Structures are given as C-alpha cells and as structure tokens.
C-alpha cells in the first residue's frame, strides 16, 4: 500500500468509527431499570409566548409528578409535524408520547411507526366513555388501539356580524344552503373596498380539506370502502357541484376576492381585518382570530354547514412512539388519564381558562358519552365566557347534521385535491371534469397503499 492510499484508508476508517459512534448515540433511550422512576418525553408544552397556557401545563405537570413520584415528565414544545416526524423518529428524537391530528393516525399505524396500547388501556379509567367513532380513528385494521383522542371539532360557517348587518343580511339567520350562501356572498362583496363575500383555501393541503368539508355538506364522500380496499368517491355530480359553485362565485359573481392561493392563517387574518364575510371553520378558529389577530369575540357568529347533509369532523389526540416500551406506555397513559382524558378535571380546567381570559364555551362536539359528557356540558354552561348566543345557529342547526370523519391518508388526499381547488379559483376556464378525473387517479393510487 503506498503512502496516499494508506492516508486515505486511515481517514475513511476514522470517519467510519466516528460515524458509527454518532449513529449509535442517536438511538432511543433504553427502558428504565425495574423499580426506578420512568421518564417520558411528551410534546405539547405551549411556547413561552403563550404564557397562560404554558403556566397551566407546567402546573399540571408538577401536580402530576407529585401524585406519581415514579414518573417524570420531560415536556417539549411543539406538536407532531408530519414534515419532521420521520427524521425525528430515525434520529431517536421523537417524543415517547406525541400529539397528532385525526389526519395522521391511519398512516402512522399502517407504517408501523406507533406503539400498540390496547393491553394498557386500564390505565385510563374514562377510556370506555370516549365516543366509539373517535376511538376508531386510533384503531388499526387489526382492531388494536394505538392512541387516544383528546378533542373533536366539526365544521360550520363562520361569518362576520358587522358585514352581514352592513350588507342588509340578518346575522341571526345565516345561509342554510349553498345557493343562499352565494347570494349572501354577492351582497357582502358589493360593499366594495376589497371585501370578499366568501373565502376559501387552495394551498398547503387546506384546499383539499375544505373541498372535503364542502362535499360532505352536500352528502358526498371523498373515499369509500369497497370490500377491503378504499376508492376515491369524489368524481361525482356532487364533487363537480362543489367546484362549479366555487368557480362561479370566483369568476361570475366575483365575490371571493382577487387574492387566492390562501392557506390556513390567511382567512383568519382576513376575518379579523373585517375584509371577509364568511368561510368554513371550526369553533377554535375564534380563539386564534381574537388572540393572534386582535379580533373580538362579539364580532363573529357561527352557523351550521350550508345544505347540512354532513359535516367534517376532525380533532386531535395522542399516540406513542413505536420504540416506547410497556413502562413508558403505562406512564404516558397515566399522564393522559390525568391531564387530557379526565372528565373529573374538566371543570377545574375551565375555571383556570375563565380566570385567565381563555375562551370557555366555544362550540365543539363532545368527545365523551354518558356521565363524562354530562360533566363536560355542565361545566361549559356554568363557566362560559364567550357570547354563546352568537353560536346558537350552529348549536341548533348542527344537532341533526351527521358527523363524518376524515378519509384515510387524509393529508395526502388533501394535497391532491388542493390542485383542483387552486385551478378553479385561479383559472377562469378551468376544466372541472378533467381536474376531478386526474385527482381521482392520484387518490386511488394513494388509497391502494392503505
């Protein structure tokens, strides 16, 4: 071996040894020794900028650790982000217990990236009172449970009381059909000064999400199960109707504003700025509109979904890292049973929120059944600090609207449907038939892997 070959070999060897040691160092913490305290990493710690929520979290953590000296909570900021999930998992940085939206569990279970928790569910006494259809979101095709839901939401029509009044519309009587909504949007847009009557998304998967909500409201489906497999079900007259009415509002009525390619925060900002009449939203949007964009709870009303043949129900919950062992799963479930899935603590939490000017009483479906549901309802009624009358149309109108969960692989499907939404909102001559046919092909290939 000559000198240069030798030096190259030494260098590569050094790099290899160091590389292996780094990779080995990234592996997950081992399970604790029997009898020792268990430390679990969890996310969901609110950032310092949300001082009230952060203090509440840390107080809860201290109380839990005092009551459970064998468990230590290592809390991290942030929530489950699909963009960083796989890399955190690969690098051993994924929390043992992490927050997810309802759009994620099906994929995580299919990819075997989460731990099964069925044998340990006795750690959560109230688990049996959680609505079965929500438990299904966290249940695999094999019937095993992989997580627990925390909150549930359903879509409605969020609208500006001031713009309704200014346009001669009755804020107590929101549009009940898409035809009525179209007329109302025209009247609001006629106010001028850049006011949009109705707003919708078409970027970062939010367009597909709203397409789904609009399709559900007409009684349509995004995907249906055909035997053991799922198939796209939106390339129908109802799917075309969704896109056609958006296209006509955008291009014929000019009631959706010039600015498109909008994503989640955009419509909240427009609503807070008084430049938007209506958009589809969940009750929790109100908190963001008020806290982040300086809106006022009194200025906004919530009505039921137009046409009301179905409403998209989403939500969030918690799942466990596939590398978490039994001790960590038991400890994590006890933390959930204390902080998140605890009907006996709902009133305590609402009291804290009310005392700290966090909203209590925003309209959202209950995750509980039976006694737990009654406790939640009683606490919300007793401690509500938002203008509940503004949400009366939603509460009354939504009672009979069936909740429909998101399709499997929801985020992937939403990404595909974003394109159809984008095209109808940005191209006057968009070919709706071709857009839906193309999306159908892509979604079927996504669903083939479910």
């Amino acid at each position: 071996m000559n000198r240069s070959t030798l030096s190259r070999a030494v260098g590569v060897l050094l790099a290899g040894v160091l590389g292996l040691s780094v990779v080995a160092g990234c592996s997950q913490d081992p399970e604790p020794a029997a009898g020792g305290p268990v430390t679990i990493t969890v996310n969901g710690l609110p950032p310092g900028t949300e001082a009230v929520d952060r203090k509440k979290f840390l107080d809860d953590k201290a109380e839990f650790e005092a009551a459970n000296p064998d468990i230590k909570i290592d809390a991290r900021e942030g929530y489950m982000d699909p963009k960083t999930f796989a890399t955190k998992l690969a690098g051993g940085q994924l929390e043992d217990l992490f927050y997810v939206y309802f759009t994620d569990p099906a994929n995580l279970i299919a990819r075997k990236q989460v731990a099964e928790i069925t044998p340990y569910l006795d750690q959560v006494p109230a688990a049996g009172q959680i609505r079965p259809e929500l438990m299904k979101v966290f249940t695999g095709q094999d019937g095993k449970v992989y997580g627990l839901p925390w909150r549930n939401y359903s879509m409605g029509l969020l609208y500006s009381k001031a713009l309704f009044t200014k346009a001669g519309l009755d804020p107590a009587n929101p549009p009940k059909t898409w035809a009525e909504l179209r007329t109302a949007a025209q009247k609001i847009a006629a106010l001028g000064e850049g006011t949009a009557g109705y707003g919708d998304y078409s970027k970062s998967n939010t367009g597909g999400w709203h397409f789904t909500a609009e399709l559900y409201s007409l009684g349509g489906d995004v995907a249906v199960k055909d035997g053991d497999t799922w198939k796209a079900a939106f390339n129908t007259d109802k799917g075309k109707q969704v896109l056609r009415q958006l296209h006509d509002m955008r291009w014929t009525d000019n009631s959706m504003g010039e600015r498109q390619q909008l994503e989640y925060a955009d419509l909240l900002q427009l609503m807070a700025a008084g430049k938007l009449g209506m958009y589809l939203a969940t009750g929790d949007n109100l908190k963001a509109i008020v806290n982040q964009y300086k809106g006022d709870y009194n200025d906004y009303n919530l009505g039921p979904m137009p046409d009301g043949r179905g409403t998209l129900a989403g939500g969030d919950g918690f799942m466990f890292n596939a590398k978490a062992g039994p001790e960590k799963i038991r400890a994590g479930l006890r933390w959930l049973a204390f902080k998140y899935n605890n009907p006996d603590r709902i009133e305590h939490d609402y009291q804290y929120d009310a005392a700290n000017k966090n909203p209590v009483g925003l309209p959202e479906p209950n995750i509980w059944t039976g006694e737990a549901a009654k406790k939640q309802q009683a606490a919300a009624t007793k401690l509500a600090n938002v203008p509940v009358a503004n949400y009366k149309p939603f509460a009354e109108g939504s009672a009979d609207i069936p909740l429909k969960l998101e399709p499997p692989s929801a985020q992937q499907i939403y990404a595909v449907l974003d394109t159809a939404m984008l095209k109808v909102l940005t191209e006057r001559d968009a070919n709706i038939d071709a857009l839906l046919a193309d999306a159908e092909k892509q979604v079927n290939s996504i669903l083939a892997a479910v």
Partner: protein
Amino acid sequence: MAIQPALRRHRRPRSVSDNLVAYAFLAGGLVCFALFSWYPLVRGVLLSFQQVNFVTDPEWVGLDNFETLFADPLFWTAWRNTLLFTGLALVFGYLLPLLIAVLLNELRHFRGFFRVAVYLPVMLPPIVSVLLWQYFYDPGNGLFNTVLRGLHLPESAWTQSPRTAMISLVLVATWSNMGAATLIYLAALQNVPGELYEAAELEGASLWQRLRHVTLPQLRFVMIVLLLLQIVATMQVFIEPYQLTGTTNPDTITVMVLIYRYAFTVNHDFGLAAAMTVLLFVVLGMFSAAYLWLTRERT
C-alpha cells in the same frame, strides 16, 4: 524540463511520523466530509432502493421506487417545469448581470453606490426576499398591481395565474441572486487589458464592436463557468415555488419541490424521494463534470 527531476528529489516522501500533525489536520477534514457529505450521499443512494419506516429494518425493493417515479405524471411535470425555470432563469439571470456589469464598468461616478445596490438583495436571507415579493405580487393590494392600477394599466394575477406563475418565480430568483454574478463579471471586466480597448478605438471600433470583439471574448471563460454554475443552481430551485405557489401547484412544481412532496407532505416515502434525488444528482453531476473539466483546462 530540467527543473522537474530536481523538484521531484526535494519532494521525496517522508515517513508517516514526520507528518503526524498534517495527518491530524487532514483527519478532521476527512471526518467532516465523511459524516456530512459522503455518508449522506451513500445513504441516499441506498435509500433509493429501499422502503423504510425508521422503526423496522429497511426493506430492499430493487427498482420499485424508480418504477413508481416514472409512472407518476408529476415526475415529468416537475422536470418540464424545472427545465422551463432553468431556461427562463438563464435568459434573465444570465444575461442581465452581464449587461449590468458592463454598465457599471462604464460608470464614472457613484460606481460604489451602484455596486452595493446591485449586491444588496444577495445579502437578504432568501426567505425574506421571497416574502417581500409575495407582498409585491399580491393581486389585491400588492405593490405591482397598485402601481399598474395607478398607471391605468391592466393588472396581473402574478403567481396565481398559470400563465404568469413561472415567470414570476424567475423574477424573484433573478432579483435575489444576480448581484453575485454581476460582481464576478465586473471583476473579470476590470481584468481586461486596457490596451485592447485603446487599440480597438484607434482602429475606429464602435461601442458595439468593442463589446463584441474585445469584451465578450475576454469574458468567455467566466461566462461559461457562470453558465454551468447557474444551471446547477437553478435546477435546484426550491424556496421560490415552495413559498410562493406551494407544493401542490402543478404549474410550478419543480424537481426539488417534488422531492420534498414525496418525503414530507404527500407520500411520506423517503425511498421515493431518494430515488428522485439520485436522478437529479446524476443530471447535475454531468453539469458539474463539465464545470470541472473546463476549469481544469484553464488552470
């Protein structure tokens, strides 16, 4: 030449122990390259033949990922868009800096000011530039449409129209990056011997003839190098389409955006993303090889 054998005698290999310090320094560099360049590179290639979930062992899938790629209509769309972006970026971003450099070189006053002004956008973090342009392009109250409205000219949907979306991205990229190319051209222009221009003037050459027969031939090497570097850079365009038009817009989806989409937003499939990366690597590798060959010839 006679001096060569003498030099060779002086450079006689010394023993390893004489060079321990040098090897130690070398090892640091090698370790960094191995960890942060070579290992990810090799891992990426391996990943392109695997299905992974980062929990269980990777599964070897042969060429499945590549077959899936070729069957995806977006694969071809992304390449077509990337080539279109690269072509448009060359039209604007390649010739404009040359033109500006020639103009700056001719300036007698405020040369320093204009140099800084041209280079200023390069100093902005890319995301800041893109967000700034996002405001410019806003079809409602954006700067461009406000100006057009003021001049009673037709407004544009900019990034929101399939007809203008790509060119809008190119304008952002050109504005953000042309400062560096301009400075390189300017440096090259200042190395052109003044006698050549004097001789040309004595021969009665016009401004255009001086540019055509003196300036451009003298800049030929720099122009070729910049051309190749620009092709390599623009084919990796990501931040402009990602921020301005999103990962789901087929009119502007580029190869890098599609890789991101495969890995993080739609498919969550790192094997597929790695396969696409390998293909991009091969294409860019050819341009890089041409660059290396050219610069080696010169030196």
